[in-house]
């Protein structure tokens, strides 16, 4: 293919990103704005007895101390799965950081002084902050049962329980010659986007404008419209490119609060979270997963039986969906005749967990793939051969009722094995590990795009995707440039404003290149239809005789650049051609997830490590990550996503975890005490490779690919540690302390 698709032109917005001119939410200055700071309590759970704002209101510059009492009664609630989160804590706080009030002031200093002067009287209450404690029959209920009418689970701290099963488990258990089982834990970790969440709201006539670094502007628009009882057309969401999101900016957090405050004050308000506050706003669900797998002696899988508990937070957010979706594929990309999966979302007095790159899958894959590695050793088989023996083949249904395997997955595994020299002996003191990761892509989707071909042949693309670093802006420009023959520098992509850009369901699940990409492609094709009609009129032929391809209009042997036909066709008045593309991925009511996979993300990660026996420190000598991407629309961006996901995954594998005290307070809030990978923590050598068979449903055969390389990193490293030391570790992160202790007590 010639043209920009498949090459790596400079990132859309790249120049602004290297000159400091990229405008992120917190960079926008509104006239007459009031600064907002939140008031929270230093404990996980408390009964609010009173809030005295008298002193705070005497601080010069403080204009408002807003509490739940200032909201319509009963206090409005919102949430993407369950409308359970109050706009401000009402009656009881439910996690460390749950705000009870907000202060608006003329300056940030005054707002901070106001917060310090708000007197909250409260009674600290016992909190449940672990799966074990939350499931104790005597545990206090996290959710008010009244919020869950008719819900049989409402009397327990289980929000939902998900059951998936196929095949005859009892019969399979009887056939199994070897059964391997174990429990694996995954810690609470946080998204830690370098851009802390920033929100603004301003009255706009009888409507409202909300600014947020949000992934789903249209979803936020619905939430605000519903809470304020406004028509969608009176709610405008402006969503500047997020400075990193990783799932943590999918759903509304404090935008509803700011919208109510802006309307109350009649002035714009602005809230920029501190990094510490972002830790108290978003995190990934912790988990405890028990896997039992049955094999024949030759390594053939005959059953998998998986029980997973995810520790979600005090409000549902989208956490239960991560549990449902992450667990649904937990038997892995394998041919497994009998499967039983039970997964529970366990409520607790902790920060509400939400989407985070991988969406519930890394927890399951950590368990499932560690179990495969242990099984290989029990069976006396090579872990690579065990995977290859059981991998589903392209076109094979491996989850009944869902999309068949959509890639030659063995190709990725074999490539990873080759790149890490799997079949060659390991250097003394080193160990190798390998694991695979599978993630179900989006199950439903609806994306619209408008493409305008302007009189001079330049193009404007409207797409409601949020470009949070994945490079969607570049991809859409490449597609339009490819289809309409415009140079990249003559294509503008407009995003992030619900008053201007048509509807997009969401930016998540690595969907945008596929779903919005197809919408852009379809919109371009609508423009091409008009060009065909134009050329047919000009040349007095049937439209069916006109071919538009790669920037050229052809009739038989004659051909013209698109711009030339356009200029002649538009005539003296000028004008433009407008195409609208609509891409739908329909829901299926009877499917357990509400729809089948648009595609699967598949990755194989292989590593070689050295373990310092004196300190427990793990050095990753080599790191290979191979993703099946269908088609790399932009190889440089694909590499950035793969390597970035891989290194991000090193965080939860080696160092990241919340540390809670007995009162449920997070003790390591912020960048000093919560470590993420730096340039000093990289593998000594990293190689990312891709498999391209053009077998995806996106433009030119692309699949989504931004999460795959994070999925299997933890089990690959743990397997390598075991290979190097003989020690099996079933808890993350693999900190030097954890590894050192395991080395001292290998049985443990």
């Amino acid at each position, binding site marked *: 293919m010639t043209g920009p698709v498949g090459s*790596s032109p*400079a*990132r859309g*917005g*790249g*120049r*602004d*990103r*290297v*000159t*400091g*001119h*990229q*405008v*992120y939410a*917190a*960079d926008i*200055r509104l006239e007459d704005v009031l600064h907002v700071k939140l008031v929270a309590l230093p404990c996980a759970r408390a009964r609010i007895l009173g809030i005295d704002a008298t002193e705070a209101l005497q601080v010069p510059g403080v204009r408002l101390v807003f509490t739940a009492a200032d909201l319509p009664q009963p206090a409005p609630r919102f949430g993407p799965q369950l409308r359970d989160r109050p706009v401000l804590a009402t009656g009881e706080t439910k996690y460390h950081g749950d705000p009870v009030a907000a202060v608006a002031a003329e300056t940030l*200093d005054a707002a901070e002084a106001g917060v310090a002067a708000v007197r909250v009287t409260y009674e600290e209450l016992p909190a449940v902050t672990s799966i074990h404690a939350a499931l104790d029959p005597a545990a206090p209920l996290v959710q008010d049962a009244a919020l869950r009418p008719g819900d049989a689970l409402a009397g327990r701290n289980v929000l939902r329980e998900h059951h998936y099963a196929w095949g005859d488990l009892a019969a399979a258990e009887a056939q199994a010659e070897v059964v391997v089982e174990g429990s694996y834990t995954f810690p609470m970790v946080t*998204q*830690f*986007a*370098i*851009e*802390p969440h920033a929100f603004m709201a301003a009255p706009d006539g009888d409507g409202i404008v909300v600014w947020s670094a949000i992934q789903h502007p249209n979803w936020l628009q619905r939430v605000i419209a519903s809470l304020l009882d406004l028509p969608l057309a009176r709610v405008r969401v402006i969503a500047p*490119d*997020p*400075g*990193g*999101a*990783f799932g943590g900016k999918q759903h509304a957090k404090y935008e509803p609060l700011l919208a109510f405050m802006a309307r109350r004050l009649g002035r714009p308000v602005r809230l*920029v979270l*501190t*990094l510490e506050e972002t830790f108290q706003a978003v995190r990934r669900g912790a988990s405890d997963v028990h896997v039992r797998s049955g094999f024949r002696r030759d390594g053939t899988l005959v059953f998998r039986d998986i029980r997973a508990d995810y520790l979600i937070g005090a409000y549902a957010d989208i956490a239960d969906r991560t549990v449902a979706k992450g667990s649904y594929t937990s038997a892995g990309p394998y041919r497994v005749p009998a499967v039983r999966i039970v997964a529970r979302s366990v409520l607790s007095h902790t920060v509400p967990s939400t989407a985070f790159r991988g969406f519930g899958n890394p927890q399951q894959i950590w368990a499932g793939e560690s179990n495969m590695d242990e099984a290989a050793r029990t069976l006396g088989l090579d872990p690579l051969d065990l995977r290859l023996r059981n991998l589903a083949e392209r076109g094979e249904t491996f989850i009944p009722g869902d999309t068949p395997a959509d890639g030659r997955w063995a190709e990725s595994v074999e490539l990873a094995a080759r790149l890490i020299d799997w079949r060659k002996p390991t250097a003394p003191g080193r160990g190798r590990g390998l694991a695979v990761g599978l993630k179900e892509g989006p199950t439903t989707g609806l994306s619209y795009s408008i493409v305008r071909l302007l009189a001079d042949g330049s193009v404007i693309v409207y797409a409601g995707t949020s470009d*949070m*670093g*994945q*490079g969607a802006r570049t991809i859409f420009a490449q597609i339009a440039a490819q289809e309409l023959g415009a140079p990249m520098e003559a294509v503008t992509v407009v995003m992030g404003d619900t008053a201007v850009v048509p509807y997009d369901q969401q930016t998540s699940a690595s969907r945008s290149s596929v779903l919005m990409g197809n919408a852009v492609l379809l919109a371009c094709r609508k423009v091409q239809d008009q060009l065909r009609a134009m050329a047919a009129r000009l040349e007095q032929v049937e439209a069916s005789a006109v071919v538009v391809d790669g920037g050229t209009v052809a009739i038989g042997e004659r051909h013209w650049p698109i711009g030339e036909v356009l200029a002649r066709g538009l005539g003296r008045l000028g004008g433009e051609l407008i195409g609208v593309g609509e891409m739908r991925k329909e829901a299926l009511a009877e499917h357990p997830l509400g729809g089948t996979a648009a595609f699967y993300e598949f990755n194989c990660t292989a590593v070689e490590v050295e373990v310092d026996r004196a300190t427990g420190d793990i050095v990753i000598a080599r790191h290979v990550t191979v993703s099946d991407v269908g088609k790399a629309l932009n190889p*440089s*961006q694909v*590499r*950035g996503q793969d*390597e*970035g*996901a*891989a*290194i*991000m995954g090193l965080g939860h594998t080696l160092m990241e975890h919340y540390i809670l005290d007995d009162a449920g307070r997070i003790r390591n809030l*912020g*960048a*000093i005490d919560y470590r*993420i*990978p*730096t*340039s*000093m923590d*990289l593998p000594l050598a*990293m190689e990312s490779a891709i498999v391209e068979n053009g077998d995806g449903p996106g433009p030119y055969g692309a699949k989504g690919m931004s999460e795959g390389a994070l999925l299997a990193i933890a089990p690959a490293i743990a397997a390598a540690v075991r290979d190097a030391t003989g020690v099996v570790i079933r808890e993350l992160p693999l900190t030097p302390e954890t590894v050192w202790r395991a080395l001292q007590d290998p049985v443990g």
Partner: protein
Amino acid sequence: MTATVPIRCTVNGRPRELVVVAHHTLLDALRDDLGLTGTKECCLVGECGACTVILNGRSVDSCLVLAAEADGGTILTVEGLAVDGRLSALQQAFLDTGAAQCGFCIPGQLLAAHALLALTPHPDRAEVEEGLAGNLCRCAGYEQIIEAVLRAADEPAGGARAVEQPMVRQTTSDPAATPDASVAPQ
């Protein structure tokens, strides 16, 4: 009343006079008083490096420097790297290698790299890793960032030549030391 301090400094080659709140940081002054929002705010404890600028030839976390301390100083921010709309070798290399993903950490990465190349014009990979160790990237585009720095250092007109102010070798033992006036003209 909030105590204020008048200061004069040179920012990206332009003399500036402003009155800053005594407890405000250089980061506050750049972003809020001068409207130079290219310098980013994240951790506010000097760990993430998003607010890195060059002050008197030394790379600093501007969240840890009081604005009043910058009185008389010379400051380079990301907005000052390009000259007459022409990107510096580092900026161009970051663009060419795809080093900027979300871009939020990139101003800090660029200035940390700028400081590194001024002191070590032809670093090896380990030196780049160490030079950027104070700048977090959660997109974790480190491989492409490191590649960009190495590529800029290889340019005939390399990163070092783009440096307009002499750099002060930073010592970890006394980070608060006043830069030597002879190498850091005010």
